């Protein structure tokens, strides 16, 4: 890029007040993040730390480097010339070894995808262009956009702007949020949101705090708020062995959601161990918590019990 285009790329957004968001990924043809065929945008940065999380790359709001060992062909192209022979690409994912800008420059020399920058800043209008590529599929299937995370409400301004534009274009909007957020923000986002998909992970706030890092009072308050606002709600509970895989814990949640007029569905989602690859690739091995796989028979039993308590219960 020449000098002037660089300057222009910095100044232009300021002139036109372009809003930017930090995301990890855009997944088209998403089939399980709301109705119809959807495009799901994963934002980067989360205020919770659920011990069973499958997406640790969305925790930090900072750019990160990931190293996928299986893609490394040991070509040494990433080895900074100045460093000594004790360099290995996996060092880039360790905190404090290299600054992020140094790491990004090094990662760019990797052509195999072994070293990659996790996180990307996108302007709303750029994102809209990508989303609109699947417009015809949304229209035919009743789908649309879902913003997921991480926690999207940490970037509320971005979410509002994206949804506002989507609504202007007649695109259905859904958000997957933990709702641990200021109620004013929730209200503002709700203005442009057709559907909220929210987890109630545990009923007991202390346990909630133990397993996610935060209590659930705010979550429940915001769910009630959205219900009053008449917003469609899909509530889910991820069922994790040793955490909440018992009827006592789940039935309190089921009873609570059963009272919500705007509840579309309540679901249990079985915990699947997808391995620890992502944690390792990001140098986050210390954060790994091991859980057992939930048995199908036990999960079915829990589903049957919840179906008795909640009339909008949806079996998986």
């Amino acid at each position, binding site marked *: 890029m020449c000098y002037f285009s660089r300057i222009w790329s910095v100044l232009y957004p300021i002139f036109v007040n372009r809003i930017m968001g930090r995301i990890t990924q855009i997944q088209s*043809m998403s089939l399980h993040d709301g109705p*119809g*065929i959807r495009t799901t945008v994963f934002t980067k940065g989360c205020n919770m730390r659920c011990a069973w999380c499958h997406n640790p790359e969305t925790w930090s709001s900072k750019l990160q480097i990931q190293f996928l060992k299986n893609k490394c*062909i040991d070509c040494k192209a990433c080895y900074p010339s100045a460093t000594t022979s004790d360099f290995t690409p996996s060092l880039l994912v360790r905190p404090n070894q290299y600054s992020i800008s140094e790491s990004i420059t090094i990662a760019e020399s990797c*052509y*195999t995808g072994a070293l990659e920058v996790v996180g990307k800043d996108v302007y709303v209008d750029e994102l809209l262009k990508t989303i609109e*590529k699947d417009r015809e*599929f949304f229209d*035919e*299937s009743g789908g649309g956009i879902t913003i997921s995370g991480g926690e999207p409400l940490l970037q509320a301004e971005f979410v509002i702007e994206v949804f506002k534009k989507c609504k202007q274009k007649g695109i259905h909007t859904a958000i997957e949020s933990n709702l641990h957020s200021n109620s004013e923000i929730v209200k503002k986002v709700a203005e442009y949101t057709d559907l909220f998909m929210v987890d109630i992970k545990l009923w007991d706030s202390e346990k909630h705090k133990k397993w996610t890092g935060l209590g659930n009072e705010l979550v429940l308050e915001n769910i009630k708020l959205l219900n009053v606002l008449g917003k469609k709600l899909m509530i889910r509970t991820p069922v994790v062995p040793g955490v909440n895989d018992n009827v006592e814990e789940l039935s309190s949640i089921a009873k609570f959601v059963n009272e919500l007029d705007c509840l579309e569905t309540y679901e249990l989602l079985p915990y699947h161990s997808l391995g620890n690859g992502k944690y390792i690739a990001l140098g986050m091995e210390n954060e790994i918590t091991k859980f057992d796989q939930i048995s199908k028979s036990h999960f079915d039993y829990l589903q049957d019990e919840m179906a008795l308590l909640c009339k909008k219960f949806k079996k998986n």
Partner: protein
Amino acid sequence: MKTKYDDRIAVLRKKKQNQTEDKIQIEGLLDEDDYGRIAPPKEGAWEIIPNHEDGSFYGVQGWTDNFCDLMEKHPTYVDPNDAFAGRWMYFMSKMRPNLFKPEFSYDHLKPEIEKYNIIDGIGFDAHFAPDYELGLKLGWGGILEKIRKYRDVNAKDEETKLFYDSHERAVLSIQIWIKNTIKEIKRKIDSEIDAELKTNLVEMLTVNENILNDAPQSFREACQWIIWYHLASRTYNRDGAGGQLDTLLYPFYLKDKEAGIIDDEAVVYQLACFLINDPIYWQMGGPDGKGGDMTNHLSYLILEAGDKVNTSLNLTIRVHDQLDQKFLKKSVELLIKNKNAWPRYSGDKALVEGFMRNGYNEELARKRIAVGCNWMSLPGLEYTMNDLVKINTGRVFQVAYNEVIDGGFKEASTDKLYAIFQKHLVIGVKATADCIRFQLEQQRYNEPELLLNLLSYGPLEKGLDASAGGAAYYNLAIDGAGLATIADSFAALQQRIEEEGKITWEELDYHLKGNWEGTDGERIRQLMNRSDRYGQVDSRGDIWAKKISEEFSQLVKNESDEEKGHCFIPGWFSWANTVGLGKALEATPNGRFAKAPISHGANPHPGFSKDGAATSMAKSIAQIQPGYGNTAPMQLELDLSMAKGDQVDNFIALIKTHFKLGGTLINVNIVDQKKILEAHRDPSKYPDLVVRITGFTAYFAMLTPEFRQLVVDRILEN
């Protein structure tokens, strides 16, 4: 719903499985359709009668002598559990050591055929559609009358007389095969001890006696007549084209229902037997001449029968605006439930609009139906060479690339490369069309279309073979192969050399010539491979693909000749030739290794984008349609997350949107990845696993390991 016929169908399914296993044991693996053919008995096997010193047979006399001899000696096949008699066993056209009479030299075309790796189609047969309605109206007796009538009118010379005599002999010999089968049914009746099966055999006997000469009257007779025709036609030269099955059989169904001689359970059983007989390409649904929907109750029963047999099936649903939505939904439910790669879907809008661009009217365009692997045909009206003639655009690219490099690295650019590519594409397409022209001149003397002539409008009336002026229309197909391979190659060169400057032409050429050898080679290969590829809707690869497709399409159209009645129609399709065409190709700038397969049909290469979204692939493929009524199919490989009941509506939305955007044909595999990997390791574990290879389905266990690997890669990477 369980019916009294289910046990019989189960026996037939098991038998079919055993027949497939036998075929693999006796004949080895084969990267092709199942065709419903069974291995002939080892004892007293039939052998061809050569009429040429090269050991092959040619010309109308040779073909007639061979066919009649085979028909008269063909083993009979009767199963008391089956509603119908007959199976075919001898691949007569494949038994020849040589396809084309050496005296008809096309040496003048060979340099270009070689240079551009053209599948020339010379001496290739069938691949146009008979009109079964004509056969059902006339019966064998009526066809014989027709032959004799026109012989009296037209046979003014020896050649024409021989033409008619040969057709007459062919029909008489088919009747001998049926007569022999009738004898066998009688023998089976005598030895059958189960009362119900005996009754079934007695009915089978009556059906066959009734249609030996006369036109079929009942539903079962109509099905059996179609079976005899296609068994004969398959034996003669593979054929395999079907028709619009639901409307074809509907009058017989209605008549029998009104007369109270059949119920839906029996119809489903008979259809199940009909479908297990041969995975012929049948279309269902779709518009009539005026655009109204043709779906009827029988369309549903055919799906039900398909569900009961669930073998290798090539049923196509023609999707149009007026299509019965319940029918579409039911078909998708079965696709998802059975995961056996059927049915497939054909997009009416683009096919009709495209075909009309050749100058045909809407009513005729709607009659052009999906009856072949990738292909469309007007039953009984056209000679097409569908899916027979292909040009490896990868080779055209390679010739152009070498020319650019010979001109010096400093002068190299994608603009220059494209200009030279265009130059060679012009020559390549013309050479391909010349091959077809040669075939149109010579094929009648090499291999007349004895069987398909019988159910076409024109050959018998005019005394001319369908390949040589007998047919009403000559809509001649030329398919391009390797679109994604070359579009991605152009895109990678543009992005990595010209825009990013990450590599020079010289460095790239070094790695191409060395087939990406060494760690550095692999690094550069990955760089090129991870470029902005075709399949993302608006990527560099997509832009190149559109440009190339438009160019190719126009060049093919330019070969048309109104005076001669030759209308050339472009398509993108590689059939199962992705492996063979790839072997003829050195390493390409998209990061492909030398001799690796080229891209599949109109599909992007697997791994075309990070999220691998079917929506963007569907849109990309819709954008590169050649646009004259032949297809550029989308091959969809979906994992089990799609195979849930709640995804039916999303899948329907995907189909409809692809077609709205201009798509022409969708082939689908819904695959359990674990199962396919296990089957790859040990195919005998899943003898009934069916995959859609391209337009056709095949038993996975029948494929060669190399081809199985290709299918596995495609599925896993998507």
